[in-house]
């Protein structure tokens, strides 16, 4: 088992950790309250770890997922086989990734028989990737993986991406060996020069070269403990990473289709905008979808029709998004400060957010610094993980106004 910081020793180097001493019985000989307390504390610790200040995050991400499809993925230590378990979790990952990073792009590669293949190209369309993953269930796993080949292929794909985007590779590596044609140190060097961050999730045991790649490119390397841990590790990659430092910022031109038909700038609104037309996203398929009068979105620059957003216009190259797509990432920029933990306050008998009366099961209550409203533990976790807005601050006329400093 590996530790995350390199300064710590490995578990097998330090002494025994007597984990059974953490659980104590209370006066009646029951363990329930103790267990509940440990669970609550673990919940809060996890939430607190995520609460970081306003650091620069890479919002536009171009991520390649490399799936190891070698022989060892047929082992059944993860049910039903490692390969199928990984595919299932990746479907969930793709869904969450596009949910949280709507303007990012994802690509999928596999590696087997000492080569690497591309399963789906770098694209922002969720359905295509999920279909590709579902079709992969039938492929056989054979041969040996090649780390260098897959990293080289990912690098070729990411090299030409604009400088302001965050370039990442996620490798799901289940083998303990790799079969490379050349010197992998050269590959690591060129990965670093191109600002590509490689994160690896090991499915078997820790492999030294993986740790070196992750460390030198600025990514993370984790080895899973069981399938729940694997899910957690994969879903951790959904969050946008902190900027590596040398990412250039630039203004990207984007189009926002979907204005009202009777919009004020009548010059751009012609009859052709509402006529039935074929959408450009499916035009190469035989069953191209015919868009009716008011369905679909028109590119504001060239007028071509698309069925769904976000998409990159094939004709003029403009990225088309809708305002909610960008708004999904705004909560990272205005994070809520962690709430202060207090023991019960006598005058507030109910949680402000959910109107639950405070009882014996709530030893601690949480107060927001800005609005001084008290919420219970569950609401605190809900606000922090899902809602991203403090209801107290939103209910106070002074703090409800959006701060854009």
């Amino acid at each position, binding site marked *: 088992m590996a530790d995350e910081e390199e300064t710590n020793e490995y578990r097998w180097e330090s002494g025994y950790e007597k984990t059974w001493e953490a659980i104590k019985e209370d006066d009646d000989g029951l363990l329930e309250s103790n267990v509940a307390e440990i669970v609550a504390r673990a919940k809060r610790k996890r939430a607190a770890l995520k609460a970081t200040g306003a650091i620069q995050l890479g919002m536009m991400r171009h991520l390649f997922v490399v799936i190891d499809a070698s022989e060892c993925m047929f082992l059944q230590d993860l049910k039903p086989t490692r390969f199928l378990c990984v595919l299932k979790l990746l479907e969930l990952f793709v869904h969450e990734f596009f949910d949280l990073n709507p303007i990012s792009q994802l690509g999928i590669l596999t590696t087997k028989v000492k080569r690497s293949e591309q399963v789906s190209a770098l694209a922002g369309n969720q359905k295509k990737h999920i279909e590709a993953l579902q079709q992969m269930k039938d492929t056989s796993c054979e041969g040996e993986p090649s780390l260098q080949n897959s990293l080289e292929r990912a690098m070729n794909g990411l090299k030409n991406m604009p400088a302001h985007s965050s370039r990442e590779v996620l490798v799901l590596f289940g083998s303990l060996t790799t079969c490379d044609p050349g010197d992998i140190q050269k590959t690591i060097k060129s990965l670093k020069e191109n600002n590509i961050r490689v994160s690896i999730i090991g499915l078997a045991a820790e492999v030294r070269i993986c740790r070196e790649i992750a460390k030198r490119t600025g990514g993370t390397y984790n080895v899973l403990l069981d399938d729940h841990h694997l899910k957690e590790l994969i879903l951790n990659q959904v969050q946008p990473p902190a*900027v590596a430092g040398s990412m250039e910022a630039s203004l990207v*031109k984007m189009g926002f289709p979907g*204005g009202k038909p009777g919009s004020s700038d009548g010059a751009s609104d012609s009859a052709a905008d509402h006529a039935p037309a074929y959408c450009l996203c499916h035009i190469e398929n035989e069953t191209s979808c015919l868009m009716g009068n008011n369905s679909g979105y028109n590119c*504001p620059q060239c007028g071509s029709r698309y069925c769904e957003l976000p998409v990159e216009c094939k004709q003029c190259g403009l990225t088309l998004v809708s305002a*909610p797509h960008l708004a999904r990432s705004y909560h990272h920029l205005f994070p809520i400060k962690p709430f202060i933990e207090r023991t019960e306050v006598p005058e507030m008998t109910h949680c402000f*957010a*959910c109107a639950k009366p405070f009882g014996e099961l709530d030893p601690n209550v949480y107060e927001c610094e800005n609005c001084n409203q008290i919420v219970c533990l569950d609401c605190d976790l809900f606000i922090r993980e899902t809602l*991203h807005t403090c209801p107290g601050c939103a*209910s106070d006329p002074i703090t*409800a106004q959006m701060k854009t400093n």
Partner: protein
Amino acid sequence: MEDKEERIETPLVAIVIDATPAKKFASQAIIDNGSTMMNRIFDALIGFGNAHLMQGSHNKLAVIACNSKSTKFLYPSENGDSKSYHNRPGQYDMFAKVDSDIRHGLSELILKDSIDHDSTTSDSLLGGAMARALCHIHKIQRELSLSHQLKPRILVVSGSSDSALQYMTFMNVFFTAQKENVVIDCCMMDSDSGLLQQGCDITGGQYLRIPTVVGLLEYLLWVFLPGPSCRSKIVLPPPTKVDYRAACFCHHKLVDIGWVCSVCLSIFCKFSIICTTCNTEFKLNRPAIVPSKPKKRPRME
């Protein structure tokens, strides 16, 4: 084969009432049988709430009101103290409780507002009320046993127009509702609200702007009482085309093509050297001018 372990469907409706007194209604004091317009609106809402509770024994209701100063849980009543109520003989006890809690809560809210005579007319705190509704729904979801399946929805009844400064709160609420499978419906009385239209579209709810406030109860019962599962079988008002354009951060006007900062995702209508939100300098992407080439290329703008 019938599934013997069917989960009991528990629809939960959270009504969010925007009680910001509109000047239009204040002047229109008495109509019909001596009741004011505000009274009629509140009567309609209580009637709707009771109608929902009547649909099934497990149905749940929550009512939250807001104005420009604060938000308040009307039912279940906020600090657990519900005033004593008298139910008419033969009236279901719960209806009388709902009626009394809502009326008392609303009167307290409105009186509190009129006491502090603040001349600044700030926007209604609808975002905060919806956030509290979501926390309440989340709590009920946690507390419900596994044999019940919660089907939550939020009904927003409002007469105020959009508040650009609460954009973040609204968007967070909509995305959370989408994630938690909460449908947001909206009944607008006087003006249109682009933000709420977007919210209804994102969560799959119904948006309706009613032409006359006098018929509020009728609209509520016909359009908003059926849950999302049976809405496909009913002919409802057609969905409006939502304006998904973004507003630029510098002038707050809607743009078709904008420039987006890659660091903080703020939108600008014109290309500029520095981002005003995150203060990052931008690298100019223009190609270097090569003096030896004589021909002029048209600038792509």
